[in-house]
């Protein structure tokens, strides 16, 4: 230790500071990359390339390129009319059912283009199931609601087992196991939605698309569905459209933010990445403005 005197302090650190370049002084941390579209570093179920959808002469969405990872929840968020539901419907050819709708670009599902002329859209929709905004059980018994799709799609096996397994996976078995002959319409809204999820599961899909599945439900029913969504990722890939930002934050692993030039016109992907990043450190100011409620 050198001799120290109070009269003439020698400050090595001060000298060191003066000798450092400004880059050295401020360069201790690296700025995050500016790229806003960050595909998940995981196996993809879907690969979308330059996807656009036209409704007649209206260009609803355009130039959507992203990967959707296996057994993860991917949330699509954005203001009304930005094309979230349109994009969701591209994933199982539901847009085919809308007169005047046409798609451009490619949607690969496990490496195969689902819009190839040789692909049967019914088979696509069996593998890629869908749950809608309002619960829509058939006016049949709980049992038949679940068994119907399985029978129609020729699912083999003991139907009682299929119904029980599907209702268990949808976290509603304990509530209905003694009332399987009761009408599905007699259930509460939250139970009806879980019944619809059970119905979708009964045909043994690979992916479940959910279009605002909780928007008609109360907060408790919503939380049950959200818990269920997390549980289902053990076996299924889920893509969910939601207007509820907190819901997207709670349930999803990845989030895509979309924005349209005007309502229903030219919706585009603005940012895509891990949900934790999108909701804490979005890279595009438009994403930041939207999720912090300063949009418009």
């Amino acid at each position: 230790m050198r001799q120290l005197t109070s009269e003439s302090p020698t400050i090595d650190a001060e000298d060191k500071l003066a000798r450092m370049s400004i880059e050295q002084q401020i360069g201790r941390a690296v700025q995050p990359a500016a790229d806003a579209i960050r595909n998940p570093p995981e196996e993809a179920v879907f690969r979308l390339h330059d996807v656009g959808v036209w409704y007649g002469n209206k260009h609803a969405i355009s130039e959507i390129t992203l990967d959707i990872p296996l057994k993860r929840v991917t949330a699509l968020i954005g203001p009304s009319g930005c094309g979230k539901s349109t994009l969701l419907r591209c994933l199982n050819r539901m847009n085919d059912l809308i007169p005047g709708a046409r798609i451009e670009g490619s949607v690969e599902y496990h490496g195969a283009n689902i819009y190839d002329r040789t692909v049967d859209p019914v088979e696509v929709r069996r593998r890629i199931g869908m749950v809608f905004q309002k619960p829509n059980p058939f006016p049949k018994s709980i049992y038949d609601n679940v068994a119907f799709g399985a029978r129609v799609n020729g699912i083999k096996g003991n139907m009682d087992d299929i119904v029980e397994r599907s209702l268990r996976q949808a976290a509603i078995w304990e509530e209905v196991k003694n009332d399987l002959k009761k009408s599905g319409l007699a259930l509460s809204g939250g139970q009806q939605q879980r019944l619809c999820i059970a119905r979708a599961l009964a045909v043994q899909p690979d992916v479940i698309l959910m279009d605002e599945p909780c928007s008609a439900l109360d907060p408790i029913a919503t939380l049950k569905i959200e818990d269920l969504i997390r549980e289902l990722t053990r076996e299924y890939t889920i893509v969910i459209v939601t207007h509820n930002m907190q819901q997207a934050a709670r349930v999803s692993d990845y989030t895509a933010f979309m924005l349209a030039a005007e309502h229903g016109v030219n919706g585009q992907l603005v940012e895509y990445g891990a949900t934790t990043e999108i909701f804490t450190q979005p890279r595009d100011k438009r994403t930041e403005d939207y999720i912090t409620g300063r949009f418009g």
Partner: protein
Amino acid sequence: MTRAVFERQLAEVQEDMLVMASMVEGAVNQSMEALRLRDVAQARRIIENDVNINKRRFDCEDKCIELISLQAPLASDLRTLISVLHITTDLERMGDHAEGIARIALMLADEPPLKPVPDLSRMAALAVEMLHGAVEAYKERDTQRAREIVLKDDIVDELYEQIYHELIMTMVSDPATIQRGTYLIWVAHNLERIADRATNICERVVYLVEGRVYDLNVSKY
């Protein structure tokens, strides 16, 4: 602007934090002045006023918790509130260090003066400069300035080391000075901790802007 009420509340809690920072800066300056001038009344005022600094910290914390729970902030809003929570904690502890110096000023007031230790004033000036600069960097969201400020902590650490050894030598050569010398080492220690906490504030400025927490400067002490 579509969240005017939330915007106002967010601005208010940050304004409260800046007022608190100004109170703490004043307390550090005044405690060193009380020590230098052997001003017992001023030392007592600083000790009494620490309650107000503490109260402001808890008020800020309450407001942050309320905004987090009721407004569900995200992205930069969330980072702002998290930063305010951390920074007010650091400021409150800095206030405690100023109070500590004031208590030493009280204890030394009736003792014969020790040989002057000019580096102590220099250390205090640097620590206050770091605090002031860190708060300015927060106001301006200036990460470059925040990264520059933390480098001064190395100088504060060296001054601390110098003061420590100088006072040890004084005490060894004259055992009658041991109590006073030890008190002054405590003062230096308080100042060293204030500089460390100013570094913490700089780290929060970087977090606020860049979304990541970096250890910008690891103190030797």
